């Protein structure tokens, strides 16, 4: 792997997606788990409170990922977004619904109003968590691209065993990640905490099965992961080992370790995807001539150099103040039994 500028930017794209999946992954997880964990209004509020100050900044990473691909790999950007248009449209609509659900659910003190937003939040967290996996596995598997990156396929072609397993794998990983995040954010021993622990064990099992199935199908089917070379088993194996580590950490009651392990699983899984892509960015299933590679889809060196300098200054700054944000709100969240009409007294 030569360290030329397009490759550096490919790595940075992978990094941006990794950070995005790591951060928004637990937001999605908390949103999906909410109806299963919270039984009353105070508990629902506590769960939302665990991500309240963070979700907006977490979500910005996906905007950055999109704009990095646009600026550094314009052909990749156009081909991917056009080819998987319906999936991206669904993700966008879901992200809109999710953000609004976060902000508006507590604006009106009415049971049906909150019920509506809770339902919206569940669906709009579930959809992207599943669809991101479908998109990533489509990227690895390749798309029917013709001349100039023009999409020659059909919407339903985006779904097959491999890509659906990819979707289920991200979905279960994000839920698991959300559960271990809650272990860090809730008071130990509270009802919510205990339920989150049970959810982590359950979803840990589901995620292990689904990730292994996804990797197995990926190796067997046309060997999409084979381009990893000598280390082809390294990253998938690391991801699987980490899932084992989650169980160990949960048994030892090491919350920090459990969260780190689910986070690392996401990191290794995303690395698997991007490493198996390289040196392509979007393989064409219609012929190698149409495949988009790091080289033939990258921007000119002038543009990449400019982007590099700006990122060199701003990325550390962003990571710094975002980290400070987490530090300011570092305490665990306690459910508050305030008098809320219709909220119910719960269990």
């Amino acid at each position, binding site marked *: 792997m030569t360290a030329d500028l397009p490759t550096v930017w490919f790595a940075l794209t992978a990094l941006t997606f990794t950070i995005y999946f790591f951060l928004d992954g637990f937001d999605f997880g908390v949103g999906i788990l909410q109806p299963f964990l919270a039984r009353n209004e105070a508990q629902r509020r506590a769960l939302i409170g665990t991500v309240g100050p963070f979700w907006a900044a977490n979500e910005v990473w996906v905007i950055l990922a999109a704009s990095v691909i646009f600026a550094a790999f314009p052909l990749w950007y156009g*081909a991917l977004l056009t080819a998987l*248009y319906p999936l991206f449209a669904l993700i966008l609509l879901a992200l*809109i619904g999710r953000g609004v659900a976060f902000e508006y659910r507590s604006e009106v003190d009415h049971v049906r109003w909150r019920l509506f937003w809770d339902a919206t939040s569940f669906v709009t967290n579930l959809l992207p968590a599943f669809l991101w996996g479908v998109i990533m596995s489509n990227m690895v598997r390749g798309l029917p691209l013709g001349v100039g990156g023009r999409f020659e396929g059909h919407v339903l072609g985006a779904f097959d065993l491999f890509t659906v397993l990819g979707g289920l794998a991200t979905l279960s990983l994000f839920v698991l990640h959300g559960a271990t995040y809650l272990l860090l954010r809730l008071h130990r021993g509270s009802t919510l905490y205990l339920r989150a622990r049970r959810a982590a064990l359950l979803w840990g099992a589901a995620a292990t099965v689904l990730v292994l199935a996804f990797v197995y199908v990926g190796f067997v089917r046309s060997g999409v992961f084979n381009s990893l070379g000598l280390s082809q088993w390294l990253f998938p194996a690391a991801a699987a080992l980490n899932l084992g580590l989650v169980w160990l950490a949960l048994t030892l009651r090491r919350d920090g370790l459990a969260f780190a392990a689910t986070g690392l699983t996401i990191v290794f899984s995303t690395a698997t995807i991007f490493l198996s892509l390289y040196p392509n960015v979007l393989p064409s299933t219609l012929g190698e001539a149409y495949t988009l590679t790091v080289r033939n889809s990258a921007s000119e060196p002038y543009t990449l150099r400019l982007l590099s300098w700006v990122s060199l200054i701003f990325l550390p700054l962003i990571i710094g103040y975002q980290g400070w944000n987490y530090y300011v709100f570092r305490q665990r969240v306690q459910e508050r039994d305030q008098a809320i009409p219709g909220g119910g007294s719960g269990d």
Partner: protein
Amino acid sequence: MNELFGFSTLDLSRFQFATTSIFHYFFVPFTVGFALIIAVLQTLAYRSHDPKLENLTRFFGHLFFINFAVGVVTGIVQEFQFGMNWQGFSNFVGNIFGVPLALEVLMAFFLESTFLGLWWFGKDRLPAWASLASIWIVALGTTVSAFWIILANAWMQHPVGYAIKNGRAVMTDAWAIVTNPKALEWFAHLWSGGLTVAAFFVLAVSAYHLRRKHNVPAFRVSFKVALLTALIGSLGVIAAGHVQGQSAVRDQPMKYAAFSALWDTPTGAQMPESLVALPSNGARANRFEVTVPYVGSFLAFNNLSGKAKGLNDLQKEYAAKYGPGNYLPWVWPVYWAFRVMVGLGGLMLLVSAYYTWRWRQGRLDDPGRLYPLLLVMPLAPHLANFSGWVATEMGRQPWIVQGLLRTADAVSGLTPQTVLVSLTAFWVVYLTLIGLDVFLLTRTARAGMHEPEVETPSVPAPNYLPEGAAP
């Protein structure tokens, strides 16, 4: 290209782009001006240690938050839709256009979303100076964000600092792109416009409560701050708009001619300006018009003898330069949108001047006979922005990048069915968002301030009790 109900993928994609951008633009300029007004209010509160003003800041902060949520989520669509619907455009300009977008995210979006969270939820967890700094950083972020996005748009209308290589535009001079004269004029125009959106909203809310004698000392402060912002904003919009018109004559003469429905280059010693006209693209003339002499020359050149070229002459010039084809924008919507924008700009200046005069007369607490007008005035800057975008974006057609790429060549190879489905979905979701936003803003604004303003957080603030403490 196949069609659906007579609409091609191009038509539907353009309509979708217009929809998602214009809806997004209902929320964005609001945050630009509003963050600034809130930052000023909090600075006043910080310096005076007046709890009334702190309450006032939280009250307007709550309104800001309601709006910001929708602004953020509709902004994500903007970042993806260039690739989704405009593959030809992304391929052609990614080298250049993608950069300001990426810079906007790196320099502004993270800043806004992180520090707004810190400001809102961290009120009791941060020292007062850090809270104040947070809101100023949010205000800075909104301004930086506006700068980069306008820079990107300005490049499409007036490409600079580029070369064409293998059929794609590549960047050769980043400095030329950053100092694109078009971008600087437009930034001034749009930023001032952003001030007016928030200013007239805060004016309306403050007047509503002043009229009802709620928290008079506090709302008097917000009224004054908003009034000054409205005055500066409307003056800025008009001044920058005047400069822009003159540079359009030079750089985008076709658009300028469409603004004025000027079909034929004037033959006399001066250029009249059309007051009212019924332009017709079919007839390539106005079916009816009323003009005033000399005004056109003054607006376009600051003198009484300058003449701009007419649409028909420009069409001939473009056909000779770029090959046969129709280079005329659709004139009547451009012409009328331009006039609505200018008219509303004038109205905003009049209203803010009138209330400044009343302030000098010492009649600030009484909104007077224009009170009903003041309550609907928040619509004026929104409508002006809307028409401004329609005029400028329709006025540059058929080009997506002036002189380099036609809109028809930029569109993705999607079926019209696909675009129609997503277009419908976006309409449903966006109309719901607007409805919710207006409903919640009105409701919260009318409810007024509580003492103290703590029970109105959008998202419940995390309840951090020490471990083991009874809830």
